[in-house]
């Protein structure tokens, strides 16, 4: 019996946004009289952080502190239409709609401030701390709160904005497959270090090392959440998960979390990540959205590392100990490949 070390890698890209477009998202932004903003959406937070990412995009666009923005989603009576949270579309589509809405609201806010300061609105800037001042003359300023109060109670203006983002539906050529699927791609390369036991077929993942390019990381903490959790899911898909262990035989599916296997807290591996940011030209502040793509490179990298460790190719997921053992037996034992680095 021996445990064989192996290293494998894979590189991928991933389309951001619903393929072929035709999937609008809307946003509404409005201010209370004291300059606190609400963003109304019908976007869905599945845990990926839709509320917070929309909040940061709105705060940045409005030029106000993050605490002054609250995202209210999703109530169909108050939130405007949105297709939903799937197909890596949330950050890209909703984010862009929020920018449009927040820009309109900001325009009214600056007009109100300009009227109070008796200057041209084009000359005004925000400091992100709750103040509006004349560009190059910080002393000539008014707070967002005062401008909002003036708009509401003196000027009779509504500080609000509407936004929609739509990439029109693209057709697919039946003969050639010519199409405009998406406008932005995220990228990744991931290396897996693992060991394979040639007696039990057990695979222990020891380390993940990765480079992910996601456009601008709108919130680094939430990017880390996605990449760590997503890579865990990739490892799970590679080695554990299946509702049909002998597909296409439809039987023997798990009925609970004891029968449907996933790596538990004792089965995880450290993940060393580098984040690259090449902003997407049409993404909100260049953001792409890492949520879906982060699991993908792990599956092939695990398979390639197993080959590197013991010389067997398992082309059918998940790569269970049973499959490894059968392959090793057919091969006449482990055949470790050249070590890498």
């Amino acid at each position, binding site marked *: 019996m021996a445990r064989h070390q192996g290293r494998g890698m894979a590189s991928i890209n991933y389309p951001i946004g619903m393929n072929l477009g035709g999937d609008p998202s809307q946003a509404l932004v409005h201010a209370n009289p004291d300059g606190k903003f609400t963003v109304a959406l019908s976007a869905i937070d*599945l*845990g990926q952080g839709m509320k917070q990412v929309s909040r940061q995009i709105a705060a940045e666009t409005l030029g106000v502190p993050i605490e002054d923005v609250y995202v209210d989603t999703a109530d169909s009576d108050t939130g405007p239409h949105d297709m939903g949270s799937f197909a890596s579309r949330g950050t890209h589509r909703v984010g862009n709609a929020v920018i449009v809405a927040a820009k309109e609201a900001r325009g009214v806010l600056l007009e109100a401030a300009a009227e109070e300061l008796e200057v041209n609105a084009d000359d005004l800037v925000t400091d992100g701390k709750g103040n509006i001042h004349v560009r190059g003359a910080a002393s000539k300023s008014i707070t967002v709160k005062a401008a909002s109060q003036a708009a509401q109670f003196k000027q009779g203006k509504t500080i609000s904005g509407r936004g929609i983002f739509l990439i029109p539906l693209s057709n697919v050529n039946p003969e050639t497959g010519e199409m405009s699927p998406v406008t932005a791609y995220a990228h990744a390369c991931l290396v897996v270090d693992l060991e394979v036991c040639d007696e039990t077929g057990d695979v222990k993942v020891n380390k993940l*090392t990765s480079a992910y390019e996601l456009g601008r990381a709108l919130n680094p903490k939430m990017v880390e959440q996605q990449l760590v959790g997503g890579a865990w899911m990739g490892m799970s898909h590679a080695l554990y998960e299946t509702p049909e262990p002998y597909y296409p035989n*439809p039987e023997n599916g798990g009925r609970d979390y004891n029968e449907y296997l996933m790596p538990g807290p004792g089965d995880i591996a450290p993940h060393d990540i580098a984040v*690259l940011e090449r902003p997407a030209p049409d993404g909100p502040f260049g953001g792409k959205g890492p949520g879906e793509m982060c699991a993908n490179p792990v599956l092939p990298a695990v398979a390639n590392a197993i080959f590197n460790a013991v010389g*067997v190719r398992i082309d059918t997921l998940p790569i269970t100990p049973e499959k490894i053992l059968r392959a090793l037996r057919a091969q006449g034992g482990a055949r470790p490949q050249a070590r890498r680095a």
Partner: protein
Amino acid sequence: MLEFRKDLFADERDDNLNVIGKGEQRQDMLGHVTGRTRFFDDHGFDGLLHLKVVRSPHHHARIRSIDVSAAERAPGVKRVIRAQDVPVNKNTLLSLIGFGKDDEPTLAVDKVRYKGEPIVAIIAASDAEAMAAVKLVRVSYDPLPTVFDVQEALKPGAVVVNETYPGNYFEYHDKYDHQKLRFGDVEAAFRTADHVLEERYQMSPIEHASTETNGTIAAPETNNRYVVHSCAQGLFFSLGTTAKILALESNRLHFIGGTVGGGFGGKVDSLTEPLAVLGAILTGQPVRYVLGREEEMQFGSPRGAERHVIKDGVMRDGRIVARQITSYFDAGAYTRLSSYGVVKCVAHMPGPYTIPNVRGDAYCVFTNRVPATAMRGFGVTGLDFSIEVQMDKLAHLVGIDPMEFRILNAYRDGDMKAHRRVAHNTALIECVQVAAQKVNWPLSETARRASSLSGGGGPRAAIPPTVTDESGRIGRPETRQAPPQLTPGAAPLPAYQPAPAVPVQQPAAPLPNYPSQPAAAAPLPAPTPPVQTPPPTPQHGAARFSSVFTRRR
């Protein structure tokens, strides 16, 4: 551990923003840690009723009769809902964007097409009473033959799963039995390639396994409206689907959601909303329809299985000159979103590499299993697994380091993609370089100096003369691309047998060391053993698929 490589693409970013790029606390985090976050099921209602469904025990059967009389008399039962109570009992999810034909009933009418298909819904005062009454519904069936393998399902004369699509395939453009991708001429390129390698990959179905199961609470609201606490991943998607199935105007539905206990694609299908609302309409009381965990795992839509057969032509120097991918998406019994996943898959071919000749054929296939749906990486995860394992094999075959091999073939700004759009904003090369650096994986000087920003475009931006064909034309059997004649290594799995057989994909022969020299006329070792069944007889128009692929020609 997470580091930012701010040095890369620095001139394309303004890093002086106030809020963007900051690791601000999540708006929802305090609610999560205090237990105050309200998910769909965290809403109290007086007089809450509970809905459970009777599910088919058969994978495929004609329904002879349904007798609900005992269930109707059972303790606590308030209402039994049958197929005829559903106003528009046929739908397909993507009809909201005009894609596909209505093919799925909310409650089965004349036949069941998968094990677990809902037939009757019971609404009772408690969960336990609803479950007890479910057992009292008597349904008699005539079991029908089944088909579980995608390639078996595509054969002429196969059992028809879903009569809306009698060939067991989703119909693309009302013209073909699959979606095509044609770019250049792969056949010509295979003839000039130093090596040709064809391999088959199989992605398992996957359960989303979100800790919150699918569910809905619907209740009568004021003004003849209904409030719907929903776990949907698309609020208006689900509202629109519910409105269509129940023939209601959208403004009679008040959907509340947006805070969901994990989705990963498993909450796009509106599995529970329509029946819960219908229950609230029919009883005038709040109705809760929540899938149990076993129900979710067995009958909630999973990520569907995918099979990808990849054939590559590669030169000794490592350039891939042709890639052909045949993909089969197992949709299960109804379309749901698989038709979309197939198009996304085709758009993703041939992966993040610039290959001058690409051919793709992707099928959305109906089988007698639980309908599949979207999942994280939909249409791409399985293809990426296949492509990247194939890339590893190709690198091994030509004796090039796998990282170098990726960089050599990587797409760059200005390159033409197989779906005929120019690539921009690419960064694959940089990702490979950074990952290599992090693990001290030695790269050549050439690979270290490569860049996504240069070396692309020019001749790589050209759209090559392309061979098109009519294979798979619907209604023209002579052009119907029968299941491609596969190599022994890529033979279809045996049809489903009730007793779980030994898994069928064990390599039978030593194989891992691909010859590093040109394979000449000698066949490469096949990755899987010849199966016992003879290869399928070539069908109409399939002669061109009948040669052995894994051999240099």
